[in-house]
């Protein structure tokens, strides 16, 4: 085998003779020649990275406004399409707060590891917003959420018990993610990114088994709304905790609404329980408001469209 290689190499090497022993420099080449600088593509401009962070903040703010103030299903749907296009397909799903959980964990515990400021910002902005206004990030900004939200076709109401048990998986996943992030050296495993089911779609390239996993999530997602978000997303677990402390959030309010239950049936995520929104599970899609006959009547008549703010003010 080696002999064959050498023979082939020699067969190639014999007719070709390298004409020079050393590289000619500017003086030898003459004619006023200047050696051009070596091509060095720099990282994405710093201001563009900062613009991404600003955009993330703005989109999260817009999501808060659309969900809590405007209660607009249409607005949130468009916002999530925009976010899917930009953060998903244009920025190719990287960086995202979900995966950054592990990087933040390593950076906080390991003195030899650090993360760019942009990653820190991307990790904390949705959490801070959730601390005041709930999971607005999930509704209008997260591309992983948006891609699943757009395929919701005929959602079934998962039995409450099953929903709750499956919902525990995300805490397990969060625990595993932190556990593997704390491992030293090569044993460290960034499993959130490795098992991101949708990043392959965003990048239009990836391992076949990950495409299959992503496809399976999307097909499941037609009937069980946003399975990744509800049962697996470790960042959702963090957002859920922050949301419990939130001062405001999506409310299905008794004084203004009819308690007819249409909203509960419209919620594909099982986040309306006993006619009231469960804040930690609500994914800010505003389908409840879209289904509400009160809003529909008001928007048709065009009157009182401003009288739709929550009763909690």
């Amino acid at each position, binding site marked *: 085998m080696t002999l064959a290689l050498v023979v082939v190499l020699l067969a190639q090497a014999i007719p070709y003779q390298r004409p020079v022993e050393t*590289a000619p420099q500017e003086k030898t*080449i003459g004619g006023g020649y200047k050696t051009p600088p070596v091509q060095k593509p*720099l990282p994405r401009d710093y201001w563009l990275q900062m613009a991404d962070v600003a955009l993330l903040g703005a989109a999260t703010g817009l999501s808060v406004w659309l969900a809590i103030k405007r209660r607009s299903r249409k607005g949130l749907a468009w916002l999530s399409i925009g976010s899917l296009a930009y953060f998903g397909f244009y920025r190719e799903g990287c960086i995202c707060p979900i995966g950054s959980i*592990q990087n933040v964990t390593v950076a*906080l515990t390991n003195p030899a*590891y650090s993360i760019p400021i942009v990653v820190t910002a991307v990790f904390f902005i949705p959490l801070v917003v959730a601390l005041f206004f709930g999971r607005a990030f999930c509704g209008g900004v997260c591309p992983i959420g948006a891609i699943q939200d757009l395929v919701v076709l005929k959602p079934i109401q998962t039995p409450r018990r099953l929903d709750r048990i499956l919902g525990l998986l995300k805490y397990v996943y969060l625990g595993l993610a932190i556990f593997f992030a704390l491992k030293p050296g090569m044993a460290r495993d960034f499993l959130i990114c*490795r098992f991101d089911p949708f990043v392959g779609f965003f*990048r239009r390239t990836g391992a076949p088994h990950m495409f299959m996993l992503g496809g399976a999530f999307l097909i499941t997602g037609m009937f069980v709304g946003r399975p990744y978000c509800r049962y697996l997303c470790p960042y959702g677990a963090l957002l859920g905790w922050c949301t419990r402390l939130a001062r405001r959030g999506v409310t299905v309010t008794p004084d203004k609404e009819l308690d007819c239950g249409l909203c509960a049936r419209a919620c594909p995520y099982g986040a309306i329980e006993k006619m009231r929104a469960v804040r930690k599970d609500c994914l800010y899609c505003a389908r409840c408001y879209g289904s509400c006959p009160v809003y529909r009547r008001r928007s048709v008549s065009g009157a009182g469209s401003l009288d739709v703010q929550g009763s909690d003010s």
Partner: protein
Amino acid sequence: MSGLTRRALLGTAVRGTVLATMGGGAAFLVQKAHGQVVWQVDAARCINSRLGEAGVEACNLCTTECVVALSAVRAVNEYSKCGRCNICPAYFNITSAVDDLGLPSEKLCPRDAIERKPIGKVDPEDPANNFYEYIIDEVKCDGCGKCAIKCKEPLGLGSIVLKVRYDKCVNCNRCAISEKCPKDALQQLPVGQALR
């Protein structure tokens, strides 16, 4: 009523504590942010540019394994080390038939990403006597390494090596190429060192 206010007060206190904790964490991460690392190909390890490594076919794992479309790795010509040869073994397929200009008839690059142009004092009478600059089009290059392996000694001077493009590299936690690279040529370097 007073119960409600107390609850609201407690809520505010808890929220403030969480916010302060997050702020502290963020501040800590920001002040150590300068130490971030990026991936780079070590030319002394890469099969395609390492001396003494025999091989006919270039290793193209950088092309096939990278998660970015068309790969974030591409070939770079370090001009100051380049022989500026008339017949460059990285530009031409030197085993192909010679055409009427006395040059090999085929190019080596499968994506036609290398441009060849005479430089310095150009002698139009004798093209073989001129120096040539070989410029790699980064947009076309997918880092297959075919030119790099031909450019190394003894055929060339080893001016063409594979490098990571930082405008395309998404800086994966575990570079997909590094996981497959048999020589562990993809290394993480401090960002300042890698950009130098």
